[in-house]
């Protein structure tokens, strides 16, 4: 349960995925000793010069990041097949690998690349899936991630998350009165990071639209917190809420038509829902306590939120049709900032136990109320769930600069995405984008 204790057992492995500045690099903080061994053979390259991306390397890292697979080191390989006819299953069985991925990259006219891949079940000695993907130089990472998605889904039966994106905020504090903030868009493995908003004032609480095309977030650019919606492709943005007081914690409804948010315009923080088409604003909670941090259930009929109405911050669920409120958490002194899993059966949130000093990511089954702590750095925040429900992203700090952590929902594997510059926080995981 406590990642740091396990680190001592499993040891640190450091994968430098990239040395590019501003990008996040993945460090494994806890591995899974039950991961399925898979061999990803470097793809054969037929073209001019050097292949710009290591497709097999990216696929191997993706599979490792899922926590369910352990790529076999290439140094152990007995051969480097790139075609089905070159595969000797005996070689791979001897390595103890369960699956084998091979492929070829062929340069096409117009700086395009065609990538063929094939997945084999080593024990059954048969081809499981093969495919062809193509793209230009800048799309090669996307090509690799789509191969990872296909391999992962074929083996696990669960849709892969390797082509999804994340957004997060990077803050560079120069002194008490000067900090630069960036809202950054990147691949879920931290690569291809692009700032989509830069400001001298705080940016926080980004939320993806369900179609993955827009973000809602809080920006202090006017000196006051206001909620904006930004279209990622064009950068076009609109200030959607700037009432007196708090305009905070926007969260898109599952159907993309509404935005839940926190406003304190009537005196204290309550949950509101804004209809994005009609611009009608509905007050959902009405309580003198602080109601905060809304997250929709997948059916869009109720909202989970944080409230200190019981004396400490706990999670509640309000049914929109009736306004009826039900308490969901009872353990500990602080349970906040919930995100509902895509299947609607579990919650991820930040938990502090009675007598604890640290704030940690926890997962709770809604039906049983059973709660499990996933990680253990001192100050964790902003948990969000991958669209396939298998991984969580969150922020962690307290040991230097703020970093992002990724952990499997079962707690078996965890990673860090440290930044080469600034404090990283406020991650949000995109929906499926293709």
């Amino acid at each position, binding site marked *: 349960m406590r990642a740091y204790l396990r680190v001592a057992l499993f040891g640190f492995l450091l994968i430098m995925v990239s040395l590019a500045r501003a990008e996040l690099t993945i460090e494994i903080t806890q591995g899974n000793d039950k991961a399925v061994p898979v061999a990803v053979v470097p793809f054969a390259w037929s073209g001019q010069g050097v292949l710009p991306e290591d497709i097999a390397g990216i696929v191997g890292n993706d599979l490792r990041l899922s926590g369910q697979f352990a790529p076999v080191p290439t140094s152990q390989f007995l051969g480097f097949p790139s075609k089905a006819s070159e595969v000797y299953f005996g070689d791979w069985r001897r390595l103890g690998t369960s699956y084998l991925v091979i492929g070829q990259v062929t340069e096409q006219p117009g700086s395009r690349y065609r990538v063929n891949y094939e997945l084999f079940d080593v024990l059954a000695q048969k081809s499981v899936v093969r495919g062809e993907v193509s793209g230009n130089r800048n799309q090669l990472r996307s090509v690799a991630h789509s191969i990872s998605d296909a391999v992962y889904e074929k083996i696990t039966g669960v849709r892969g998350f390797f082509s999804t994106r994340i957004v997060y905020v990077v803050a560079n504090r120069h002194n008490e009165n000067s900090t630069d903030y960036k809202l950054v868009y990147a691949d879920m493995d931290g690569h291809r990071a692009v700032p989509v908003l830069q400001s001298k004032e705080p940016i926080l609480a980004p939320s993806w639209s369900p179609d993955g095309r827009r973000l809602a977030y809080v920006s202090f650019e006017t*000196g006051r917190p206001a909620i904006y919606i930004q279209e990622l492709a064009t950068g076009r943005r609109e200030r959607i809420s700037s009432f007196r007081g708090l305009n905070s914690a926007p969260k898109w409804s599952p159907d993309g038509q509404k935005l839940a948010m926190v406003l304190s315009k009537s005196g204290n923080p309550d949950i509101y829902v804004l209809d994005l088409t009609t611009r009608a604003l509905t007050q959902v909670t009405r309580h003198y306590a602080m109601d905060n941090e809304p997250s929709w259930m997948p059916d869009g009929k109720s909202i989970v939120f944080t409230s200190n109405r019981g004396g400490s911050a706990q999670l509640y669920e309000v049914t929109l049709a009736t306004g009826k409120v039900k308490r969901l958490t009872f353990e500990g002194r602080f349970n906040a900032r919930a995100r509902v899993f895509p299947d609607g059966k579990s919650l991820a949130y930040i938990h502090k136990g009675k007598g604890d000093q640290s704030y940690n990511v926890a997962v709770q089954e809604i039906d049983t109320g059973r709660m499990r702590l996933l990680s253990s750095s001192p100050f964790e925040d902003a948990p969000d769930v991958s669209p396939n429900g298998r991984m969580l992203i969150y922020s962690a700090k*307290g040991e230097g600069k703020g970093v992002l952590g990724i952990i499997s929902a079962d707690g078996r594997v965890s990673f860090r995405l440290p930044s080469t510059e600034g404090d990283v926080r406020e991650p949000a995981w995109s929906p499926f984008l293709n």
Partner: protein
Amino acid sequence: MKFGNITKGFATGLAVIWLAGCASTGTQTAGSGVAGTEDSTVGGAQTAVVTTPLVDPAVQAVIDSGKVQGSVEQIEALLKQDTVHFGFDSDKLSSDDIKALDVQAAYMTSPAGVNSKLVIEGHTDERGTRTYNLALGERRAKAVKSYLALKGISSSRIEVVSYGFEKPVDPSHNEAAWANNRRAVIVPIEG
């Protein structure tokens, strides 16, 4: 510290008065911030002189209000206190901070301060979630605003903004830093 209005009041308190022959202590209303002028025709030649009040006119205004007790030094220190601090996850004002707010309210209701306006910034420490703390910071700023309202300051003169833990005084991760960061800061609005 950030009390621009005090220094400004002080500057205009440098009274230029005309007098002739005899010494004068000046007749300007202490703390009014308006130079008192007096035209004497006794004698012939006149010369410009300058008096400087020993007491900050804003402090004098608080003393004149009769609403708070204390020495000039105590009142000056309380009036200059632009920050109040809070306990963990709390928006309760301490008795020491209430003294400072009483002085602030006495100034704001005095003739010298009757046009002053404030922004109260609410801040938190880094513990808990960022969005929870944004709401908590607002609670703290509103606790200050509510107290000043009790003392007769119209809510239209006080604006509240929360920064949560976005703007720590001390970004370190320890008790001392947290105690410093859990604060509301009173910022006079210029003009």
